[in-house]
């Protein structure tokens, strides 16, 4: 039953927009899906490898712009979407390595500050290279994906299924990586870098692989998101995007794949549904506060509350939850067992 759960949820995600086929809702689902992809990618860097990256939106930008420049009238280059998926995630991965390399000796706060800088530099660069990127206007009329002659068009539904498929691939990839030599090496570095090196783990290569693979996920997300929106512009990739994705991880449960997905869905629906609804509701009572403008205040409060009351996130891994509860008595019992039973 446990093993079936992910497949049942995936099935539910397939039929969901067929039941609630309201255009706005499907559009929301597709956008939320892109953020799930981003969160799954950042989870590899922050959740698995423990490298606090505050500029993750940079890779989202790089993925999106790669697609925009190579599949639009901008340069008259029209590489097919499905090729671009690989290309954009590859380009994002390369930049993951380029931006990761100078940070290898940094940890914690220092790493966070440098990645924050990268997160600002990348959209600024796209803004200022206007001869290639269209500057503040960005690049528009991007190519639409097509499959077997079917063009995706302007409805959100095909993009939703595209993104859902990518999420499926990303979940499988993240799950496989977690239970592998590389995944253990990431977690070992997260727990204790020095001890990891003493276990024969090349920390340089292992950290760079986390940056690269994490970035490649956002390349996929960037490609899908840009093609859906048909437009990229520098203001889509600000610091707020990096913070939103990080909030998704913290809220959902860092390092745990189902937690990360739930966290990103909660933050997305807060952003797109709950806050606008609450604002309307309060306007009805004559309270003229626009909550959507204070979303970052609200994210901040959520982060603080999560850290205070549920530091392991909404859905921590099953193992960790049971451990956190049984920790005290187990250690005690083992202690007695050890002193008595071991010859």
């Amino acid at each position, binding site marked *: 039953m446990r093993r079936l759960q992910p497949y049942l949820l995936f099935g539910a995600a397939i039929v969901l927009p067929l039941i609630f086929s309201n255009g706005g809702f499907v559009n929301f689902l597709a956008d939320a899906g892109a953020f799930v992809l981003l969160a799954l990618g950042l989870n590899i860097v922050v959740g698995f490898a423990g490298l606090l990256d505050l500029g993750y939106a940079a890779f989202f930008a790089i993925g999106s712009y790669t697609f925009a420049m190579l599949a639009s009238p901008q340069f008259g280059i029209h590489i097919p979407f499905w090729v671009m998926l690989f290309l954009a995630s590859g380009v994002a991965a390369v930049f993951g390595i380029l931006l990761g390399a100078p940070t290898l000796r940094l940890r914690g706060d220092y790493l966070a500050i440098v990645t924050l800088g990268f997160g600002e530099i990348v959209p600024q660069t796209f803004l200022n290279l206007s001869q290639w990127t269209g500057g503040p206007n960005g690049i528009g009329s991007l190519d639409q994906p097509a499959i077997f002659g079917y063009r995706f068009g302007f409805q959100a539904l095909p993009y939703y299924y595209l993104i859902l498929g990518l999420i499926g691939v990303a979940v499988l990839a993240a799950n*496989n990586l977690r239970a592998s030599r590389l995944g253990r*090496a990431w977690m070992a570095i997260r727990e204790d870098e020095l001890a990891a090196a003493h*276990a024969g783990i090349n920390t340089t290569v292992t950290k760079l692989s986390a940056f690269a*693979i994490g970035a490649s996920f956002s390349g996929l997300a960037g490609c899908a998101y840009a093609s859906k929106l048909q437009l990229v512009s520098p203001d889509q990739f600000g610091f707020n995007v990096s913070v939103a994705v990080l909030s998704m991880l913290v809220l959902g449960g860092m390092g745990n794949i189902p937690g990360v997905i739930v966290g990103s869905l909660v933050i997305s629906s807060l952003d797109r549904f709950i806050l606008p609804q609450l604002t309307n509701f309060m306007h009805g009572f004559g309270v003229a506060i626009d909550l959507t403008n204070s979303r970052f205040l609200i994210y901040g409060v959520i982060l603080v509350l999560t850290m205070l009351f549920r530091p392991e996130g909404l859905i921590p891994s099953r193992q960790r939850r049971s451990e956190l509860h049984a920790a005290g008595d187990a*250690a005690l019992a083992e202690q007695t067992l050890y002193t008595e039973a071991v010859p």
Partner: protein
Amino acid sequence: MALRPGSGQALLQLEDVTQRFGGLVAVDKLDFSIDAGSIVAMIGPNGAGKSTVFNLITGIYAPSTGRIIFDGRTISGRKTSDIAAGGIARTFQNIRLFAFMSTLDNVMTGEHARMRAGVLDSLLHTPAQRAEERRVRERAFELLRFVKLEHVAEQYASNLAYGMQRRLEIARALASDPKLLLLDEPAAGMNAKEKGDLIDLIRRIRDLGVTIFLIEHDMRLVKEISERITVLDHGEKIAEGLPGVVCDDPKVIEAYLGAPA
């Protein structure tokens, strides 16, 4: 030379090794060697430079001058992970486990350097990767049985009792199949019963063919287990030899207790 135990072949050799930190000389022209198959202890007062010697051997520091030769190859100046993969494993004075990983995963991580799976194998779980994971898991369980921790394989390392964490660190170190095992104060914080078990464990490890080099303050344990002792004071080797002889050496007594008035 005839007094040297073991096979008589030096597995590890320090040649004139000096380590300076700014103006401080932590290790001063240190010369010594460890024979393959032996159990050797290094003792000395606090701050004598013992842990620095370990850090030099495992590549955390590159010596200011001098050479470290392991198994016929110069290792000084090489990366810690390469030295570890080359057959030197260690435990730490303050236990350094992967706290939020299971006991089993801690040991499996120790096998990292002996595994072949690359990024694509890890991503796709190829048949070769699966077979390797199975092999590595079985071997990790074997090691957990060896240190009597198989019953807590699924627990987080952070949830283990202190003595068990010490043994888990040893199991993780053994997972890399080392030729030389460095133990940094393995008996610290242990009661008499646990120390007895530790002595037994160290002997069993040596019987696997692993050479053991330990730093320890507990002199009863050191005398009982080690075949040779090196004494360090202010970064210098002040005595070396058989346990019984070294411990009665006036210079050693002076280093520990101060010069007679």
